[in-house]
């Protein structure tokens, strides 16, 4: 099952009530990839976390398939994430004391017993595909690139429909960043997973089907996502 | 914390565990027996005592000053035992007291505070192997409050 994204009149505010982000309209077909770029503090990550259901002060409509995240309770949003969303972060956020396999299969720890074996098996499979040879090593001994691969395997282990990545290559050196970008896009494409990436990394953004630029809390072009092809062209020429 | 309050709270807990309110249980607690009723006029044991032998009974009285410290044993008396030069003659002695062998080490209660000892009534001559004391009537496995 894949989910189409449909955002309408989304408004995100800070706890103080100050508006952070306004998205009049954004759509993404199932299985497609979207890059979000823009200057620091423009609201890129805010959009990403709003789409993951981790933010509270929302107005408007965030539709993933038939589900409107804005209307769900925190608890239901967590359950939605558990079922449909995988996330990747700039700092990997791994448990240093655990081995690669346990990190990649982390969600098995709180999933029902009958799902655990499946999650672990997929985690092992993704680790192997991502070139992590010894999955029983503690991640404390891994390089940055290897860690992010473990994080990718973790995000994919639960078979998500949506993969959200926040600056996944920012902590990596160039060659590792390029290798990870290719793997990330390839894995998402093969699994039919929608991929949304917030990044400053133009080489990564170049791999995306669509790119959205955010500046000052709103899409740089008032038409928003409708104009992403223009952005794409600029990227291609860069 | 006081041992007796602990026991009481334990009882309450045990009562709750079984799901029966303790109050109704206490209401049907059996009657308290007077010390003197355990003895017959001829210094032997009474018919009442004979009929209760081996049963857990409650006897009312006072704790005599202890003969042994930190023991599982005390003497229950009918009246508070103080050294009174007028009222104590040897003839009064045997049917005034009851040996109480307690479940736990005795926490001594002043001799003038009334208490109820509850334990299994035992009859017949018995020499305590530890203290060497001879007694005719005893409460065994007792607690008091």
């Amino acid at each position, binding site marked *: 099952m894949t989910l189409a994204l449909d955002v309408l009149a989304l408004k995100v505010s800070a706890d103080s009530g100050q508006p952070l982000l306004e998205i009049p309209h954004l759509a993404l077909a199932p299985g497609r990839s979207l890059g979000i770029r823009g200057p620091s503090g423009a609201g890129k*990550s805010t959009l990403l*976390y709003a789409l993951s259901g*981790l933010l509270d002060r929302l107005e408007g409509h965030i539709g993933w398939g038939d589900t409107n995240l804005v209307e769900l309770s925190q608890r239901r949003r*967590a*359950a939605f*994430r*558990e*079922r449909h969303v995988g*996330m990747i*972060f*700039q*700092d990997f*956020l791994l*448990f*240093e*004391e655990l081995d690669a396999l*346990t990190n990649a299969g*982390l*969600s098995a*720890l*709180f999933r029902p017993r009958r799902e*655990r074996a499946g999650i672990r098996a997929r985690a092992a499979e993704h680790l192997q595909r991502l070139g992590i040879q010894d999955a029983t090593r503690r991640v404390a001994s891994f390089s940055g690139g290897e860690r992010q691969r473990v994080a990718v395997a*973790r995000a994919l282990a639960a078979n998500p429909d949506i993969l959200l990545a*926040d600056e996944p290559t920012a902590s990596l050196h160039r060659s590792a960043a390029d290798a990870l970008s290719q793997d990330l896009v390839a894995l998402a494409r093969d699994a039919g997973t929608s991929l949304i990436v917030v990044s400053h990394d133009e080489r990564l953004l170049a791999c995306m089907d669509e790119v959205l630029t955010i500046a000052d809390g709103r899409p740089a072009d008032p038409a928003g996502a409708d104009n992403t092809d223009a952005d794409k062209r600029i990227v291609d020429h860069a | *914390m006081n*041992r007796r309050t*602990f026991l009481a709270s*334990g*009882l309450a*807990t*045990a*009562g709750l*565990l*079984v799901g029966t309110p303790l109050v109704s*249980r206490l209401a049907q607690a059996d009657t308290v027996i007077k010390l003197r009723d355990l003895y017959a006029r001829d210094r032997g044991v009474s018919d009442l005592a004979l009929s209760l032998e081996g049963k*857990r009974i409650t006897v009312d009285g006072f704790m005599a*000053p*202890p*003969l*042994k*410290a*930190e023991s599982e044993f005390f*003497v229950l008396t009918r009246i508070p035992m103080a*050294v*009174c*030069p007028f009222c*104590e003659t*040897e003839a009064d*002695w045997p049917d005034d*007291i009851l*040996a109480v062998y307690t*479940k*736990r080490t005795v926490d*001594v209660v002043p001799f003038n505070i009334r208490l109820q000892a*509850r334990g299994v009534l035992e009859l017949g001559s018995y020499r305590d192997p530890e203290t*060497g*004391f*001879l007694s005719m009537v005893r409460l065994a*496995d007792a*607690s008091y409050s």
Partner: protein
Amino acid sequence: MRDFWDGLPIVAQEMLLLGAWLLPILLIGAALLYGFAATRLIRAMLWRFRWANLTFVVLIAVAVGMGSALIAQERGLRQGSAKAADKFDLLVTPPGSEMTMMLAAVYLQPSDVGLLDGPTYQQIARHERVEIAAPLAFGDSYRQSPVVGTTAEFTRHLTDDSVEGRLWNTTYEAVVGAAAGLAIGDTFQPSHGVGEEAGLEADSHDAHFEVVGRMPRTGSPWDRAILVPVEAVWEVHGLANGHAPERRDQLGPPFDADYFPGTPAIIVKAEELWANYALRSEFSRNENTMAFFPATVLTDLYRVMGDVRQAMSITTLVTQMLVAASVLLALLILSRLFARQMALLRALGAPNRFLMAVVWGYCAVLILGGTLLGLGVGQGAASVLSAVITQRTDILVEARLGWQEIRLAAAFAGITLALAMLPALAVLRQPTVTHLRS
């Protein structure tokens, strides 16, 4: 129901009480942890903050250990001193302070005491209910050992008839305590008085004793004592020896009232339980004598000690609670350290209950570990203290952890584990997104 409870052995009663204390914790634990595999993460967190965790465990252990050592020690002291007085049911002495007389006769502490005369002794010894009436004549010493004059019968009573070697057959033979520093066959010369000044040559009695028997350890100050026939004590002081001239070689009772120089104390033993009480009131009625149960004096002493203990128990309980509170506070602060991990779990869609399970389980390991270690620390501290007291007083004190300490430890663990819900709940209130981004 009540009969059922009363009929249970102590172990079963204690287990049920312990269960009652720990049941809420088991329920909380089960409710939080059910269906999750949280142990991997708890282990990881324990390892990550291992030094801080070790500090918490040690803090809790010391707090719990001090409390339980104190209680165990006080009980050990009571049991030890009670056991040392076990053979002294009824003591008859000249009127005075019961405490002084008890310390002198039971614990052999030197003190200035009066004498009971011959007719008084006779009256007691001839009483039909009295099984043993032994004079105790103390005052002399040899080195650090008090020399006590008494009867062979009392020596047998004191040792449960298990003297190594034999009892005395003649006046100048002695039976020594296990720690008196004399062996069978040794000879010695007692001196007047007890303590530092005793033992000066000028003060020595001109009499030589031979050791013919040795008592087993009793765990009381009598282990250091030297027992001799009471006749010998009288004779070395130049007094009549308790017997008429025509029977002057006799040892032990019956004594002649006319030739009885006096004794500071008489140990009385009656076979029948009630007779002890009857004799006590009978001899108390006499204006020349005072009769009391050393156990009663001890019990009064214990009551005072018990009040002190209770005050101290409350202090230690408060200390424990303060330690627990500071540990929980520290955990609350520490929970900020793993805020990123918690935020990650939330991002993965972990339910609140799982986050609480991880944090509470982590606290539970520290608290339970500290409490168990604390009981060990308590036992260790109590053993050391007991050894010191035994060495100084000759009263064998053995402090072992009892149910009371275990109950207190269980109560402590129970309350603290319930409070450990607070850091668990605090974790839920932490902002997620801030912690996901560096």
